């Protein structure tokens, strides 16, 4: 019955063979993923268990590597836009934003003011939908099946709104160097105005139904405690860093677009545990609603794409630029090196999830398997972004 693949030289793969068991054979080496329900996609974690306690955990990456960086070298600046919708499919507009800002910096392109507001409105809506999906999926990891259905109700409204200007519901490629692809209609803006009070009325329900639930609190509190120095050592960013007590938000630290004109707070938590990260994300939904509220009133009339915006055969001046924006998961960075041709010479994408995932090996050590699931969920990982 045993095929050749179950015999010694073929048993396991590089990672499991290298992951040698300890001196006594009372431990269990287990592959969590790449098809495990709580690794959200195709993350694989090799863990060594003693009973249900994790002695070691090691993430294995690359199951969703799609060569996004390499593809940039063979595409023109405009052709690369759709890739930016697919790096992180939950907050694609932040990637759109990072890339177009980098190209604009490279080519010294002015952006019309209306386009800047359109970018802010759509990407904040997208941030809310990303946080909503995280909220539902995290609770699903903790064994609560219902919240994701509630979260999707709101997310659905955001997608219905966004599909009108962007033409898609998930992998948006809506921004263009020098502006955006389509204008926002008055109906869209009216829809956003209606969405803000609706979303605000739902947040107290989230708190009553879920956040205050005693089982959830015991699953999140004092689980995955991440001290600030450790978060900084690993280069964590976004809600993960802010939940460790540091008010670092790229929108404030390295201002871009029209964010300096808008009033919003940077939610910080001193809790450092999974509950802290949970609360920071829910507070960020409220802050994004504040931004939306101001932006829909402040948006001026005017052009949406600057005259002389890059055409498909546009040649960028030689140079090197880096642009960071604040994504739902943290600091998104796009680094473009141009040699003056129609294609970038090299593109490097900085995915926040990559740094946040690297925390997991240390955070999971010594915890229960159930806690590891909770920690993994609280880091809000999107695997396509990590593997790129």
């Amino acid at each position, binding site marked *: 019955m045993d095929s050749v693949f179950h015999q010694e030289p073929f048993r396991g793969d590089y990672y499991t063979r290298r992951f040698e068991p300890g001196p006594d054979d009372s431990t269990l080496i287990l592959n969590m993923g790449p098809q495990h329900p709580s690794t959200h996609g195709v993350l694989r974690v090799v863990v060594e268990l003693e009973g*249900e306690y994790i002695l070691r955990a090691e993430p294995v990456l690359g199951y969703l590597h799609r060569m996004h960086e390499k593809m940039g070298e063979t595409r023109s600046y405009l052709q690369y836009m759709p890739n930016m919708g697919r790096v992180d499919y939950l907050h694609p507009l932040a990637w759109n934003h990072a890339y177009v800002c980098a190209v604009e910096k490279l080519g010294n392109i002015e952006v019309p003011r209306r386009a800047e507001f359109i970018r802010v409105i759509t990407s904040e809506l997208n941030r809310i939908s990303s946080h909503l999906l995280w909220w539902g999926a995290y609770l699903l990891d*903790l064994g609560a099946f*219902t919240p994701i259905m509630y979260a999707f109700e709101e997310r659905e409204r955001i997608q219905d709104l966004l599909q009108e200007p962007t033409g898609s519901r998930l992998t948006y490629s809506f921004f263009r160097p020098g502006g955006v692809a389509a204008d926002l209609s008055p109906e869209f803006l009216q829809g956003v105005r209606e969405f803000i009070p609706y979303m605000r009325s739902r947040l107290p329900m989230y708190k009553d139904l879920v956040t205050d639930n005693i089982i959830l609190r015991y699953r999140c509190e004092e689980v995955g405690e991440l001290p600030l120095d450790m978060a900084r050592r690993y280069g964590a960013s976004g809600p993960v860093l802010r939940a460790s007590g540091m008010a670092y938000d790229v929108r404030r630290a390295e201002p871009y677009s029209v964010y300096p004109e808008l009033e919003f707070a940077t939610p910080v938590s001193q809790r450092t545990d999974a509950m802290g990260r949970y609360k920071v994300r829910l507070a960020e939904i409220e802050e994004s609603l504040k931004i939306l509220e101001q932006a829909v009133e402040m948006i001026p009339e005017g052009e949406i794409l600057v005259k002389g915006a890059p055409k498909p055969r546009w040649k960028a001046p030689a140079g090197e630029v880096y642009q960071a924006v604040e994504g739902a998961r943290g600091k998104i960075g796009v680094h473009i090196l141009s040699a003056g041709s129609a294609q970038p010479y090299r593109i490097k994408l900085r995915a926040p999830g990559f740094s946040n995932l690297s925390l997991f090996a240390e955070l999971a050590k010594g915890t229960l398997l159930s806690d590891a699931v909770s920690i993994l969920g609280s880091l809000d990982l999107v695997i396509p972004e990590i593997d790129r």
Partner: protein
Amino acid sequence: MEATLLDPRMFRIVAAAMALAAFVGLNALVLVYLERKIAGHVQRRPGPFEVGPHGLLQPLADALKLIGKQLFRPAGADALLFWMAPVVSFIPVLPLFLPIPFDPDLVAMHVEPGLLLILAFTGINVLALCMAGWGSNNKWSLLGASRAVAQSVAYEIPLLMALLAVTFMHGSLNLSEIVEAQGAWPWQWNAFIQPVAFIVYFTCAVAETNRAPFDLPEAESELTAGFHTEYSGMGFGLFFLAEYANMIVVCAVATALFLGGWQGPFFSGWWWFLAKTYALLMVIIWFRWTYPRVRFDQLLNINWKWLLPLSMVNLMVTALVMKLF
């Protein structure tokens, strides 16, 4: 008196076993439908709607699908243990229903220590989970099985003690007698005379049937599917059936012992028994779609630090009161 095949008692048992098998199957179908519909409405969606009017035939379609699926055994799995586990899980379900009094006359078998019989046979389920976990040659299944054993062993103790408190009051293990000793009105039910025992029993019952929030042996987001990860088709189907049947049994026992069984303020009869049982079942289903899952150490802490002392104190107080008055 020597029992032969033509003995009327023997005939009664065979007829009862067949009726019970039909009852279990039918109720499982109803419960699947209920579970999916309640889940749907809790989650603000309609639930199954395609097969039959309001999705009424959905459970039948589910059952057909399960029967039609290939039975698959992973390489390296212990064939005997692997295939015996679902059967061992399902078979004890039928004797469980024998002493349950749906009505003064509608009892499959009048057993004097009926409660004892039920408790003995519910204990077998954990053996099946253990066999499935070990026989599957899968680490997730093994983890699920080890959780199942720790959980079942722990939760059986307060469950027994909660039931003991009730039997102390009535001095009987016969379910019919206990039902008759209670009155028709809610304040005459044991749930109101023994509220602590009722709460402890019901919590333990949810844990014993591996239902959320205590569904750790099959915790989907942690252990993929726990002990039944490797089962397909009717292998999984039997576990599924046994789980639902066990839910019905624990709720039926709760109805008989705590909620006055078939007695109602008016028109007493088996319909009261079924209504009360289904009310409890719906509470269990409602739990599942509302709460997150507890962690394993928390689960055991709830048991050893809260339920066990609580049921012990309750038992001693009951014994003292029964002795003094």
